[in-house]
C-alpha cells in the first residue's frame, strides 16, 4: 500500500491531492457514483489500486470520508466511488456537480484476495452499498474469467430501487457471473426473491472444498453469510469479509478504527474471516 504519489519526495501522508468530478451517476435513492480525475496528470497516470481498497475524499471545510473505490482497477485516469449519503461529508458531496473539485488521498487498506483464490469457485455475497467495494473484484474476475471456476453474485437490498449497478447485470451474466438478487421489500414489478442475502445460499449447489466467499455488508448480514457458508462446509480460511469502522485518518495514527489488534484502515478493510472470528459476535468490541 502506498500513497498516490510514489514519485514525490517523502510527501506527508496527510496531504490530499485535488481531483475533479468528471461524471455523476445516480444509482439509487441517496446513492451516486462519482468518477474522479486527479488534477495532476502524472499522479492520475500513476494511480493504481487493488479491488477492495478505499480513498479518503476531502471537502475542505466539511472533512474527509473513507469511500471504497468501485471502478475497474485496470482503467486508468478515472477513479469511481459509489457514495451513499450518510454523514455530513457525504451530504456535502451530494451537492457537488460535474467539474467541482475535491481532495483525495489514497488508496488505502487491504484488498480482496483475487490472486489467492484463483482456480476456485467464488461466491460474492453483499448487501446494499456493500456491492461497491466488490465491483472492482467483479471486473477483475470477468477480465480473468478463465482463471476462476463458477462465480456467484448474491446481492440484496432493501427494495428493488436500492439495488446498485442493475444496468450492468446483463453484461455480468453474459461474462459468466451467476447473479441472484433479493430484496427485503418487493414492489409490483419485482419478480425475484424476497428476504435476506444469506437465504440465497439455498439456491446454490456449492463444491465446498473449492469455494471461497467474499462478503461485504452490514455485520449482521455478514455473520449469517458466514453461518450459511460454514454450514455448507466452506473452509474458514476461504471466507473474507470487509469490515467497517470509524476511519478518521487511514494511516493507523488516529486509533478510531481499531477492532481488536487490527487497524481496519491498514490491516483491513478486507480481512480473512479467521482474523475477525473472535470478535464478530462480541457486543460493542
Amino acid at each position, binding site marked *: 500500500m502506498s500513497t498516490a504519489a510514489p514519485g514525490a519526495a517523502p510527501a506527508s501522508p496527510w496531504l490530499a491531492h485535488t481531483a475533479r468530478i468528471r461524471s455523476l451517476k445516480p444509482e439509487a435513492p441517496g446513492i451516486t457514483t462519482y468518477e474522479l480525475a486527479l488534477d495532476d496528470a502524472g499522479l492520475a497516470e500513476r494511480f493504481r489500486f487493488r479491488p477492495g481498497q478505499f480513498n479518503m475524499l476531502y471537502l475542505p471545510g466539511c472533512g474527509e470520508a473513507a469511500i471504497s473505490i468501485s471502478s475497474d482497477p485496470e482503467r486508468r485516469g478515472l477513479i469511481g466511488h459509489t457514495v451513499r449519503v450518510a454523514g455530513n461529508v457525504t451530504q456535502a458531496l451530494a451537492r457537488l456537480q460535474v467539474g467541482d473539485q475535491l481532495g483525495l488521498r489514497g488508496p488505502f487498506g487491504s484488498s480482496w484476495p483475487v490472486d489467492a483464490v484463483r482456480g476456485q469457485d467464488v461466491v460474492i455475497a453483499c448487501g446494499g452499498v456493500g456491492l461497491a467495494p466488490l465491483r472492482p473484484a467483479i471486473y477483475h474476475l470477468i477480465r480473468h474469467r478463465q482463471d476462476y471456476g463458477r462465480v456467484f453474485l448474491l446481492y440484496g437490498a432493501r427494495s428493488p430501487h436500492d439495488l446498485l449497478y442493475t444496468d450492468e447485470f446483463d453484461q455480468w451474466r453474459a461474462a459468466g457471473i451467476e447473479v441472484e438478487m433479493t430484496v427485503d421489500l418487493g414492489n409490483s414489478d419485482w419478480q425475484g426473491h424476497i428476504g435476506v442475502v444469506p437465504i440465497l445460499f439455498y439456491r446454490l449447489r456449492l463444491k465446498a472444498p473449492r469455494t471461497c466467499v467474499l462478503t461485504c455488508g452490514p455485520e449482521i448480514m455478514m455473520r449469517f453469510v458466514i453461518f450459511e457458508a460454514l454450514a455448507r462446509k466452506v473452509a474458514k480460511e476461504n471466507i473474507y469479509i470487509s469490515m467497517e469502522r470509524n476511519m478518521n485518518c487511514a494511516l493507523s495514527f488516529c486509533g478510531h478504527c481499531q477492532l481488536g*489488534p487490527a487497524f481496519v484502515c491498514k490491516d483491513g478493510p478486507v480481512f480473512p474471516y479467521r482474523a475477525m472470528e473472535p470478535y464478530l459476535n462480541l457486543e460493542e468490541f
Partner: protein
Amino acid sequence: MNSHKLPVGSYIRFEKPQLQAVIDRLRQLGYRTVGPRRVDEAIVYDDLRSIDELPVGYLDYQDGGVYRLRHSADGGWFDYVVGPHSLKNFLFPPRDRVLEAHREPGGWRMETPAVDEPPIAAIGVRSCDLHALAIQDRVFLEQEYVDPAYRARRANLFVLAINCRRAAATCFCHSMNTGPQVTRGYDLAATEVDDHFVVEVGSDAGGHVVTAADWVPSALADVERARQQSQALKRRMQGRQAAAATRPRHASSAAELGPAAELGPPAESGRAAELGDVPGIGAVGESDVAQHQPLGRFLDTRELPELLLSNLSHPRWEQVAERCLSCANCTLVCPTCFCSSVEEVGDLTGEHVVRQRSWASCFTAEHSYMNSGTVRKTTASRYRQWLTHKLATWHEQFGTSGCVGCGRCITWCPVGIDLTQEVAAIRGDES
C-alpha cells in the same frame, strides 16, 4: 571551563547549580528548554530558563485520584516523580495542524504545514517517559506511514534525563521493565548525589552541551553510588510489591492508605514528623515505610495479553464501569495513548481551512462513531477497549506493551480506578 566534546559513555559530575550553564548552552544553541515547573499545585513540563524555576524540594504524594505537593527542606532538585505531562505534550501536541487548504482562482491548493518551532530540549525526563517516547516512535515513525510533524520534532529533541531516587505509590516501572534507571534514549542522564549531579553522556549532542558546566570527571565511586541509588529504589519497589501482595488490594483512598504511601530517597529519614500535619501526604524515610507497609503498585505481566483477550466477557468490565466516569483523563495523561481526531477549522470566508488534529479518547462515544451507530456505547465496552488495547493488543500492533508503569492513569482518575487492581481482579478470578 572545559570546552571540548565529551565522548559518549563518559561520566562526569558537577555541582547542582552548574545545571544553569547547561540550560544556557542549550538556549544558545536555539533550543526551547522545557522542564519541571510547579503550576497550579502540580508539577508539569513547561518552559524552563532558570534553575530558580525548578520545584526544588517539592515531593509529590500520588495515589488513586490523589495528587498533592509538599515542600520539604531536605528534598532534592528532582525528587518528585511524574506529573500529568509527558514528552507526548511536546512531540504529539494536544493540537496540531496536518493540512492546510486555500481556495485560489484555479481551485483548492493543499499544503502540509511546516513545523516552524524551535527544537525542544527536555530536562528532567524519567525513564518511564523515555520508554513511552520509544513507543510513540513506533506509532508515528516506524509503521507504514510516517507523521511528518512528529518526525520533525522528534529528530531535534534533546533529552536530559533524571534517574529517579524516589517512587510514588502509583509508580510500577519495575513491573514493566521501564525503570527506575534510565537506560535508553537520552543525550544526558543525571543522577542527584548529595549536592552534585553525576551525569552520563548518551550522545554527541549531550557530550557537547554538558561541557558548558564546570565539570570534573566522575570517580568510579560516584558512578557506583549513582547506580546504587537506582538499584536500591528498584529493590524497595520490589519489596513494596511483596508487602502489598500479602495485603488486601482494595484500599485506594488516601485515608485508607495512611500517611506512608511513598518511598523516599535514603536521605529523607526523620522528616515524617514534619510532614505529618497533612494526613497521607509527603515522603517518609525507610523506617516509616516499613512501619506503615505502603501499598505499592505492581502489575503481573505474565501472559497478560492472553489473560485479557480470553476474558472479554468478564463481569469485571461491568463492575469497573460502575465507577468509571468515561472522562478520558487516563488517556490524556497517558504518555503513550496516541488516538486523535482531525477537525476542520475554517476562517470566516471559508477560503482558508486548517485540518487540526486534537487528542481523542476511546472513552468518548464519538471515537467509535459510524454512520450506522456508535460501536462502543457503554462505559464497560470503552474501559475494556482501553485496557485491552493498552496491555494486550498493543503487543500485536507494535511489539510492545502500551504501558510503561508511570501510574499517571491511576493518579489522575477522578475516582481512583487503578489498572493494576483491575488486572489483578481479572487474574484472580482466573486462577
